[in-house]
């Protein structure tokens, strides 16, 4: 790929800088049972975790590629070209000053330590395979809130991890969850004790720096009875002309009356495969909310899902996707109403531009014993030109006739009258587009913490510049 084509493919990607790779440990490319064992050994893991990894590796080898999403793109992934583990620092620091300078610079350019001081309850920053920095506010710690990177979580609270790990997303769920379970590294581990409300959001920041890197973080969040937590994650990678693979698994467990909100703004550069399995289980009267934004990546396949297992539980999935040139955002939501009087709201908004493609893939299930369920699904697509593509694949399995279900879908174009109106107020075409696009995503953006909302708006405005006219 020539420099120009590379730039074309990623647009004006503002996180495209990269640092020299200073790996302290780097595995050879490619995957084998030995690589899986080596990762586990390197991390000094208990035997049972090594077992889980090995089994998962075997499942990964056996399992076929998913047949949905974008099979052409999926089949381009060269698993042998991926580096499965890369350690860039000696360990996870709790003091920002102890983080290696080059890594510190990266996160400082991304605004991480400032954000922590201003509005976060805790922060973890993952660079390549492992967390390099971690902190939590003292008051949360005193209340018994556990917030660690996943590796430390396993080391320090093996009994909790053993009890819940892979119970929501089993390794065998799909090829990529099997892969993640085999080679996982990093991610967050959170436990919120009964009745504790974590008011300030806790944030994780994921950064891939190395070429051909695979990042396989694993996140497990447990909110005990009547507790609540608001977790935010952001992702970026530098711009290389070679591809990287990000394949995470996130498991949420909301006990009776608990509430978990999980917000993501994914802005990987346009050569990252982003294949993520996110699922939560909600017990009686619990709420799980996924707030999921996909702006970057080459191919994203991600369908945050909720198992409504307890009576009266509630799921909320608000997602947006932006597909520019060469990008396919295959995103959506899955909600399984497994208990009576459960409710769900799904709002999905997508924008396609410059030949990009965005797909909504949804699953709504109501089991026979789940009486009195309500669900509303709204999918809106906005097309910015005629070469772009948008499609919807909604699936409904309704086994109980008392269910009250609504489904609305719309595809719209930016109208000339809207553009003319805004331009007559002094806004260039790109600025007018930026306003319309930000307005379209507003129902999503207003759910984000302020800093993320501002950043997302700015990003979309930048996206609208250039390729117009």
């Amino acid at each position, binding site marked *: 790929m020539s420099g120009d084509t590379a730039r074309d493919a990623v647009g004006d990607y503002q996180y495209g800088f990269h640092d020299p790779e200073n790996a302290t440990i780097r595995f050879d490319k490619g995957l084998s049972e030995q690589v899986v064992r080596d990762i586990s050994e390197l991390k000094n893991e208990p035997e049972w975790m090594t077992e889980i990894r090995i089994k998962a590796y075997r499942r990964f080898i056996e399992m076929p590629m998913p047949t949905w999403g974008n099979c052409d793109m999926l089949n381009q992934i060269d698993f042998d070209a991926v580096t499965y583990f890369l350690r860039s620092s000696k360990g996870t620091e709790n003091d920002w000053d102890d983080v290696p300078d080059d890594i510190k610079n990266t996160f400082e350019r991304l605004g991480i330590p400032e954000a922590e001081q201003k509005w976060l309850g805790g922060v973890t920053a993952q660079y390549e395979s492992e967390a390099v920095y971690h902190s939590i506010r003292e008051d949360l710690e005193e209340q018994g809130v556990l917030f660690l990177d996943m590796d430390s979580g396993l080391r320090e609270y093996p009994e909790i991890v053993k009890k819940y790990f892979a119970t929501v997303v089993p390794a065998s769920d799909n090829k990529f969850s099997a892969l993640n379970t085999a080679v996982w590294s990093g991610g967050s581990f959170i436990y919120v004790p009964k009745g504790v409300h974590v008011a300030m959001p806790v944030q994780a920041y994921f950064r891939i720096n190395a070429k051909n890197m695979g990042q396989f973080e694993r996140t497990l969040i447990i909110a005990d009875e009547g507790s609540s937590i608001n977790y935010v994650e952001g992702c970026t990678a530098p711009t290389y002309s070679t591809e990287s693979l990000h394949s995470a698994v996130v498991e949420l467990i909301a006990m009776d009356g608990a509430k978990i909100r999980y917000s993501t703004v994914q802005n990987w550069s346009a050569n990252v495969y982003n294949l993520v399995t996110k699922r939560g289980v909600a017990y009686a009267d619990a709420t799980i909310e996924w707030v999921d934004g996909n702006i970057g990546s080459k191919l994203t396949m991600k369908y945050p899902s909720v198992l409504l297992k307890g009576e009266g539980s509630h799921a909320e999935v608000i997602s947006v996707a932006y597909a520019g040139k060469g990008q396919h955002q295959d995103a959506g939501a899955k909600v399984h109403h497994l208990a009576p009087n459960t409710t769900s709201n799904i709002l999905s908004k997508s924008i396609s531009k410059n030949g990009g493609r965005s797909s909504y893939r949804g699953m709504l299930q109501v089991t026979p014993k789940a009486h009195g369920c309500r669900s509303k699904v709204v999918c809106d697509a906005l097309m910015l030109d005629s070469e772009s593509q948008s499609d919807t694949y909604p699936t409904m399995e309704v086994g109980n006739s008392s269910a009250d279900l609504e489904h609305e879908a719309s595809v719209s174009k930016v*109208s*000339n*009258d*809207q553009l*003319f*109106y*805004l*331009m*007559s*107020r*002094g*806004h*260039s*075409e790109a*600025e*007018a587009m930026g*306003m*319309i696009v*930000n*307005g*379209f*995503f*507003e*129902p999503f953006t207003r759910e984000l913490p302020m800093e993320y909302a501002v950043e997302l708006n700015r990003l979309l405005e930048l996206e609208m510049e250039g390729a117009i006219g």
Partner: protein
Amino acid sequence: MGDEVLSIDGLHVSVDGTEIIKGLSLTINIGEIHAIMGRNGAGKSTLANVVMGHPAYEITAGTIAFKGVDLDEMEVFERARAGMFLSFQYPASIPGVQVGTFLRKSVSSVRGNSAPSARDFRKELMGHMDSLNMDKSFLSRYVNDGFSGGEKKRLEILQMLLLNPSLALLDETDSGLDIDALRVVADGINSIAPEAGCLLITHYQRLLEHVKPDFVHVMIDGRIVRTGSAELAGELEAKGYDWLEA
């Protein structure tokens, strides 16, 4: 003769191959208020849109100049920044974009370096909203989204006051306004009029009781067929348009 703000000369305009404006000339000077009246479909909005640069319309002959500069090469937003303003007959709604944000951005685009500081802007905005009897809650609503007819027109006038144009094209801004609103809109127009050229498109004499036009033009089938003083408006209201037809 004062300074020319708008000069239209021998204008012909088509949309999708159909000619709508069929030879129209008009000159507006600073400080002048012109009214255009005419039947539905006569081409009044087309004229206003074409002057502002709507891309759907094709100018097949003639010229339009703003302050002596030919508008042919000027983009819509450049016209706005140069001091032209159109109050729409049917303002578009922009879901998700809050009025407050939109106004602030518009003011900084149009007024550029001389845009007020955040604090002065706020002061200015509050002053105008008070005079237009607009509640502060408008600022957090989405632009024209779910607005009543009269609310949309007030928002148009609010924008006009903030952007302070030297040419204001007001397309049926009086339609759908209640009596109080008509008065505040008229006050708004009168406040910018001495420093600007105004073109009022209207069906009713009642606005012209509050805003005294220097000229009234009658438009029929894409042409100006009669130009008179303010009294012509009253005559039209009484007699209709038939008597003017060739």
